[in-house]
């Protein structure tokens, strides 16, 4: 099976602004990639480049094995934009029905009910979008992105307007997508969530990739341990694999070890280390 996403040297300049610089990236089928970075880092630009909404100033790539911008491939792709508003005069069901027709979806009514249910909007499905709260609009956007069982879904800050319940819903939803084999490209500032649902992350800053890899690997380099001896806590700057050796050395040296705590930094701490201006 081809990669869900494979891009090489993707770049976008807006006049003097280097919105995205040389992005090379692969996302395997069914994988969830967290795409992180501070405001203005180039996250939304990357998504728009991948979807062909913005023309790259450099690089190329494929989605689901077909070149970027391929029209037929878009039938297998879902997208929740960062900022959007559906016309207020339509109901959620009508918005979805229109998208179902653009997708030439068979059994549209059933699929529409299914995605409405999945985002918790079924009860309000026939109300006009104009009467929706911001979070309900975002839920509708999610429903549109999920319509037609896509193989690859782009979610640009899907939880920015959602209540804690909605966030947990989105988490569960991403897990269901992964179980189904759908690849997910997730832009988010909620690093706790990313840490829980993503396999890998890519961190960008000022258009440049500053770190990329499996979350474990990204956090591993920064592991340490603290050990409680008779005279209190001692810190050891070692990797997780080296902790038993440290303890053995201490014990051999006659120390009495009361407790050992591997110190695990969170994705958020690692993120701040990477992007905080020195």
């Amino acid at each position, binding site marked *: 099976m081809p990669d869900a996403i494979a891009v090489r040297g993707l770049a976008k300049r*807006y006049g003097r602004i280097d919105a995205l610089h040389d992005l090379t990236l692969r996302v395997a089928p069914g994988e969830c990639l967290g795409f992180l970075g501070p405001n203005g880092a180039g996250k939304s630009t990357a998504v*728009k480049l991948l*979807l*062909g*909404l*913005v*023309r790259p100033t450099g690089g190329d790539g494929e989605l689901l094995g077909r070149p970027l911008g391929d*029209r*037929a*491939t*878009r*039938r297998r*792709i*879902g*997208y929740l*934009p960062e*900022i*959007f*508003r*559906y*016309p207020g*005069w339509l109901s959620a069901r009508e918005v979805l029905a*229109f*998208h179902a*027709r*653009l*997708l030439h979806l068979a059994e549209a009514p059933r699929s529409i009910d299914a995605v409405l249910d999945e985002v918790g909007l079924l009860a309000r499905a026939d109300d006009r979008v104009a009467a929706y709260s911001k979070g309900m609009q975002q839920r509708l*956007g999610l429903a*549109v992105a999920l319509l037609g069982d896509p193989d690859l879904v*782009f979610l640009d800050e899907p939880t920015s307007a959602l209540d804690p319940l909605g966030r947990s819903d989105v988490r569960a939803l991403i897990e269901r997508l992964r179980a189904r084999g759908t690849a997910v490209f997730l832009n988010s500032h909620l690093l706790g969530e990313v840490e829980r649902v993503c396999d890998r992350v890519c961190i960008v800053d000022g258009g440049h990739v500053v770190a990329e890899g499996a979350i474990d690997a990204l956090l591993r380099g920064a592991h340490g341990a603290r050990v409680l001896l008779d005279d209190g806590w001692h810190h050891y700057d070692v990797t997780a694999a080296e902790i038993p050796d440290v303890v053995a050395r201490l014990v051999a040296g006659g120390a009495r070890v009361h407790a050992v705590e591997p110190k695990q930094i969170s994705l958020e701490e690692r993120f701040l280390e990477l992007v905080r201006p020195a």
Partner: protein
Amino acid sequence: MTAFLIAGLTLRELARRRLVTAVAVLTLAIVAFTLWGTLRLAGASVHGEALPTAGLRGAAAGIVILLAFLFSFVLALGAALVAAPAMGESVANGEILTLLARPIRRADVVFGRWLGTLAALILYVAVTGGIKLAVVRFATGYLPPHPLAALAFLAGLATVVTTASIALATRLPVLAAGIVAALLFGFAWIGGILEAIGLALGNTGLADAGTVITLAFPTDALWRGALYALQPAVMTAAVTTMPAATPNPFSVAAPPPGALIAWACGWVLAVFAAGVASFRTRDL
């Protein structure tokens, strides 16, 4: 076809907004005034004697032309201000991002928006124009020589303005696109007058300037086509025998030449193609 889906969405959007109600109310008001005016005209008398038939017909013809003239302005303004949001609003609110992530062409979006807007405007021309002609006919018994041709020319005028407004809205903000399209119509109108004045005064420079303007935005030629179709033969004859008469936008000596109509059609195609090209290369 996707473009028809988009056109359908555009029409539904127009229908659900209160715009249709507002336009209907305004149209009814105008029709009521027309009816009142023409009925009074039919009952008018000069020195205690009823207007002779020829006089009544002449007055009715004048009223029809004046109504059509005002209508062409309302139509052009309406086309400019309806077409721009039809194209630009989904760009402004980000809905276009979700549409273009679907397997559709950007050209389909432009074509669908154009088609939907035009369908609404042509319906408006047919209904409103038809009602006004029927009212004049009812009150005075007068019907202009080629009513359908006149409505077709007015629809062509709406097409030119719509195409310009949509092409502009592929790049400009909605309000700017609508206003610029309306202004272009106004300039073309002035161009038509300059051309007529230039010809009447024998000033070729002025006439050429006017011609260039009316070719650059070919609404004036279409207005002249509508005018010719509405003008009774006696009036046309009168204009033809007095070529140096004061130039005015209310009478013409001849219909616009076929080449000019062909030019207007080519213009619409070219501007539409430019709009598609502009939208296809736009970063959203």
